[in-house]
């Protein structure tokens, strides 16, 4: 079941690029792609699994947070789940803005925040079919017991219905 930010289908990058507004002078598109190697071992595919209902909320919050941090930026995110082959996009983050400073910075912020806070996991699959769930080396924001979404609910600055 596809949500607003998660999809089980291939990501339509052309549709992302069509989102620029007339006022936008800069369009920044980050695409995460499955690559063929990790830690010296060959990867043939990556399996992405998500806590989908929570990931939808957290991705909405990434968009809201980045937009708040970079006024004037339009942010759109799509993350794919399921089994993806080498070369297939796993995530697309679009930021459009009047100027490039905002677009570049907001796009970078969005992917870094996504990686810290969104409940999505990946398993790198080797040629023999084996594969381990990837565990990042440094602790994430999620491990602090609070995420931007939780902060929002305790922060009167934003109400939940303001989330995109």
């Amino acid at each position, binding site marked *: 079941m596809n949500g607003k930010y998660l999809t089980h289908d291939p990501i339509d990058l052309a549709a992302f690029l069509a989102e620029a507004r007339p006022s936008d002078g800069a369009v920044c598109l980050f695409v995460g792609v499955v690559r063929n190697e990790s830690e010296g071992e060959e990867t043939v595919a990556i399996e992405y699994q998500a806590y989908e209902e*929570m990931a939808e909320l957290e991705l909405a919050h990434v968009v809201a947070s980045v937009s708040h941090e970079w006024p004037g930026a339009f942010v759109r995110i799509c993350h794919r789940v399921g089994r993806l082959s080498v070369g297939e996009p796993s995530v697309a983050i679009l930021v459009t803005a009047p100027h490039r400073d905002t677009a570049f910075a907001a796009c970078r912020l969005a992917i870094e925040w996504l990686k810290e806070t*969104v409940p999505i996991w*990946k398993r790198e699959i080797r040629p023999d079919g084996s594969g381990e769930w*990837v565990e990042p080396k440094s602790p994430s924001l999620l491990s*602090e017991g609070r995420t931007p979404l939780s902060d929002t609910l305790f922060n009167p600055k934003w109400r939940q219905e303001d989330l995109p």
Partner: protein
Amino acid sequence: MKVRILYFASFRDAAGRPEEVREVPPGTRISDLWEILAREIPAFGRFPRMPPAAVNRLSTVAFHTLEDGDEVAYLPPVAGG
């Protein structure tokens, strides 16, 4: 009271199932429930303390007291993007 526990990634492999419904006494904290599960699932024992967790899709703290009908998820280190 009943809580629904969701498992993901390495925790799902260790538990052998994507989810379960568990009966717990009132006053059970999310950390107490983890200790119960860790006694049953050996792989969970490698975490000296409770991993990050969410109740009803909001990340929370160890002393969060559970309520009837809560949806609980213990979260392995995230790796999206």
